[in-house]
C-alpha cells in the first residue's frame, strides 16, 4: 500500500509539473493563475498521499495550510490582477 | 564552557531595556514615546558605563548564559573590552543625538502625534537595542538578527524626512544591506554544517582551514564589507548618509557601520583559522588603503558639505582595515598596539563623525544651503558649531591630542614594528588629505559672509550637544593609557 500511495504521489506531482510548464507560458494572466492553483491542488494531493504512506500526521497540517492559504492567495491574486487590469 | 559571570545580568539589561522602551514607545506614541526614549537612553548610558567599569575592574570579559542553556544548544551574551567600549560609545552618541533631536522632533504638549517625531523617538531606542545585540551577541546567527535590526532601524531613520530625492539612495542602501546579510547568513549555514555550532567562543580555535570554512569566511566577509561600504562596494554610502536628516546621518556614519565592523572582527579573529587571517588580512588592508586615498580625494572635491563628510566616512572606515594584517603579525606587542589602535579608531571616528554630521546639519539649517564655497559667515553666527566641526576634523586628521591621533599613532607604530611600513605611508597620506578637506571647510566658514547672505541663529542646546561629542572625541586622546586597557580585555 505504501508503495502504491507514493507512486500515486509521484504521478500527481509529475502531471502537475507538466501542466505547470505548459501554463506558465501563458499567454494570459488567467493561465498563469491557473498554473499556480493547479500546483497548489497537486501539492495538496501529493502531501496527503505522502502523509498516508508514511503515517506522518503533521504533513496533513501542511496540506490544510496550503488549502486555506491557497484559497486566500488565488483570490488575492485575482483582486490584484483586477487592479493591474484597471490601469 | 561559558559560565555566567558576576554582573552578567547587566548585559541582559543592556539589551532588553532599549527593546522594551521601543515597544512601550510604539504603543504609547506621541509625547510619551519621546519621554520614554530619553529616559531609556539615559539609563542605557549608565548601564553601558557599568558594563565598562565591571570589565575594566575584573579584567575579564562578562558573560551571561541565557536561560541557563549552555552553548552549543543555548546562547550566551558576552562583553569583552571591544564590546564594552563600543557599547559605551554607542550610548554616548545616541544620548547626544537624542538631546540634539529634541529640537527638530519635539512634540509639544497637546499637539497631535506627527510621523517624523513618532518614528524618531521609537527608532532611537530601537537602534540602541540593535547595537546592544550586535556588540554583545555571542552567536553568529543571533548576530544575523542583530544585523537586520540595525538595517531596518538605519533605513527608517534615513528616510525620516520623507524627501523624494532620498528614496532612491536609501533603497539602494537597503538592497546592499540585505544582500550583505544574506551572504553572511549563507556563510553561517556552512559553518553550522561544518562544526554543529555557531557559538563564537566554541568555534574559536576549532575551525579548520578546509573548503567549507574558507568559503563561509569569504561569503561572510563579502557580506559584511558590503554593509561597511569598503572600497569597491562603497558607492551606496555617500548619497545614503548625506541624504538623511542630520541626526540620522550622525547615527548611520557614527554607529551603524560599526556594528558590521565588530562582527567582522569577531569573524576574523575568533572564528576563522589563523592561516586564512594571515593571507586575507593583507587583501582587506589593501582595499582599506585604497578606500583611504580615494575617499579622501573625492571628499576633497565635493561641493556639498554633507557629501564631503560622507565621503570622509568611506576614507575613515578604510583605516579600520589596516589593523587586519598587523594583528596577524607574529610580534605580540605590535599586535596588541594594532588592536588598540583599530578599536580606538572606531570609537573616535564614531564620536567625531557624529559631531561633524550634526554640525553640518546645523550649518545647513542656518544658511539654508550647504555649498562648501559659500559657507562664509557661518563662524560668526554659530562659533560653537564651527569649533565642534573643527575639533572633529582634527580627530579625523589624527592631530594630537585627539583620540584619532592616538589611534593612528598606534597603527603607525605597529605597522613599522611589524615591518609593514607601507601602511604607515597610507596613514600619513590620508592624514594630509583629511587636513586638506577639513581646512577647506573651516577656512570657508571663517570667511566673511557673502553679501546678501542671511544666516539664522541655531538653538544653543543643539550646538552644545555637538560640541560635547567633539570634545569627547578629543578627550579620548588625553585619557591615560591604562584607561584604554579596557579595550585589551579579552582581545584575540
Amino acid at each position, binding site marked *: 500500500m505504501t508503495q502504491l500511495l507514493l507512486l500515486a504521489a509521484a504521478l500527481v506531482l509529475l502531471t502537475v509539473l507538466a501542466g505547470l510548464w505548459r501554463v506558465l507560458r501563458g499567454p494570459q494572466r488567467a493561465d498563469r493563475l491557473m498554473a499556480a492553483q493547479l500546483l497548489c491542488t497537486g501539492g495538496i494531493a501529493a502531501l496527503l498521499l505522502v502523509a498516508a504512506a508514511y503515517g506522518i500526521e503533521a504533513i496533513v497540517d501542511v496540506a490544510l495550510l496550503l488549502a486555506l492559504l491557497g484559497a486566500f492567495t488565488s483570490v488575492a491574486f485575482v483582486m490584484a490582477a483586477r487592479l493591474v487590469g484597471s490601469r | 564552557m561559558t559560565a555566567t559571570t558576576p554582573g552578567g545580568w547587566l548585559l541582559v539589561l543592556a539589551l532588553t531595556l532599549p527593546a522594551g522602551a521601543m515597544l512601550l514607545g510604539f504603543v504609547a506614541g506621541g509625547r510619551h514615546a519621546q519621554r520614554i526614549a530619553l529616559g531609556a537612553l539615559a539609563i542605557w548610558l549608565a548601564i553601558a558605563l557599568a558594563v565598562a567599569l565591571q570589565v575594566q575592574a575584573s579584567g575579564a570579559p562578562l558573560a551571561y548564559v541565557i536561560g541557563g542553556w549552555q552553548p552549543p*544548544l543555548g546562547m550566551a551574551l558576552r562583553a569583552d573590552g571591544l564590546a564594552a567600549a563600543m557599547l559605551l560609545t554607542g550610548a554616548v552618541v545616541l544620548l547626544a543625538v537624542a538631546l540634539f533631536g529634541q529640537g*527638530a522632533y519635539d512634540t509639544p504638549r497637546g499637539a497631535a502625534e506627527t510621523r*517624523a517625531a513618532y518614528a524618531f523617538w521609537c527608532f532611537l531606542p530601537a537602534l540602541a537595542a540593535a547595537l546592544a545585540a550586535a556588540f554583545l551577541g555571542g552567536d553568529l*546567527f543571533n548576530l*544575523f*538578527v542583530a544585523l*537586520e535590526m540595525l*538595517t*531596518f532601524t538605519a*533605513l527608517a531613520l534615513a*528616510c525620516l*524626512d520623507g*524627501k*523624494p*530625492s*532620498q*528614496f*532612491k*539612495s*536609501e*533603497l*539602494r542602501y*537597503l*538592497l546592499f544591506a*540585505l*544582500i550583505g*546579510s*544574506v551572504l553572511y*547568513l*549563507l556563510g553561517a*549555514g*556552512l559553518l*553550522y*554544517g561544518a562544526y*554543529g555550532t555557531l557559538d563564537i567562543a566554541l568555534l574559536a580555535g576549532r575551525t579548520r582551514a578546509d573548503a567549507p570554512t574558507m568559503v563561509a569566511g569569504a561569503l561572510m566577509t563579502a557580506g559584511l564589507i558590503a554593509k561597511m561600504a569598503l572600497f569597491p562596494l562603497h558607492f551606496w554610502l555617500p*548619497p545614503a548618509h*548625506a*541624504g538623511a*536628516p*542630520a541626526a540620522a546621518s550622525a547615527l548611520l556614519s557614527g554607529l551603524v557601520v560599526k556594528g558590521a565592523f565588530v562582527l567582522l572582527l569577531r569573524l576574523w579573529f575568533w572564528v576563522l583559522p589563523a592561516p586564512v587571517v594571515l593571507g586575507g588580512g593583507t587583501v582587506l588592508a589593501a582595499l582599506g588603503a585604497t578606500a583611504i586615498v580615494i575617499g579622501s580625494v573625492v571628499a576633497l572635491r565635493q*561641493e*556639498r*558639505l*554633507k*557629501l564631503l563628510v560622507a565621503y570622509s566616512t568611506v576614507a575613515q572606515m578604510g583605516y579600520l582595515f589596516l589593523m587586519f594584517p598587523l594583528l596577524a603579525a607574529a610580534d605580540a606587542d605590535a599586535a596588541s598596539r594594532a588592536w588598540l589602535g583599530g578599536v580606538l579608531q572606531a570609537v573616535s571616528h564614531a564620536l567625531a563623525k557624529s559631531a561633524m554630521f550634526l554640525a553640518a*546639519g546645523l550649518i*545647513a*539649517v542656518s544658511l*539654508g*544651503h*550647504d555649498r562648501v564655497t559659500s559657507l562664509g559667515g557661518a563662524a560668526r553666527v554659530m562659533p560653537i558649531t564651527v569649533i565642534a566641526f573643527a575639533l572633529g576634523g582634527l580627530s579625523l586628521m589624527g592631530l594630537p591630542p585627539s583620540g584619532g591621533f592616538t589611534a593612528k599613532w598606534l597603527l603607525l607604530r605597529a605597522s613599522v614594528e611589524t615591518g609593514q611600513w607601507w601602511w604607515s605611508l597610507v596613514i600619513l597620506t590620508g592624514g594630509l588629505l583629511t587636513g586638506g578637506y577639513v581646512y577647506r571647510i573651516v577656512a570657508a566658514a571663517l570667511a566673511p559672509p557673502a553679501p546678501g547672505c542671511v544666516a539664522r541663529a541655531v538653538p544653543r542646546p543643539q550646538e552644545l550637544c555637538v560640541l560635547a561629542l567633539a570634545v569627547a572625541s578629543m578627550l579620548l586622546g588625553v585619557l591615560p593609557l591604562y584607561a584604554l586597557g579596557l579595550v585589551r580585555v579579552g582581545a584575540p
Partner: protein
Amino acid sequence: MSGTDILALAACGLVAIGLYGVVAQAEVLRKIIAFNLLGAGVFLLFGVVARRGAAAGLAADPVPQAMVITGLVVAFAATALALVLTLRLHQITGAATVAEDPPSGAAPDPASEP
C-alpha cells in the same frame, strides 16, 4: 550521490540564480523577487545541513530548522520594507529602478533640512 546532495546542489543553484537576478535585473521589484529566491536558496542550504544532522530519531536537526523559521520571518519583514520603499519611490518620482540619476540631480538638496 545521495538525495540530500542533490538538494544541496539545488540550493547552490538557487543561490546562483538569485544572485544573478539581483545583480543583472534593472527593475527594483524584480531585484526584490530575486533577493527572495537567493534567500530561499540560503534557507534550503540550512535545510540540507539540518537533514544531514538527522539523529536521535529526529528526521532533521531542529536547531537549523529553528534558524530557518526565524530567518523566513526576518526575510519577509525585509521584503515588506523594500517593497514599501519601492512603492513610495514610484509614487513620488515615477522611478522603477535605482539607477544613478543624471549628475544634476545626484546631490541631495539639503535646503529643506530640519
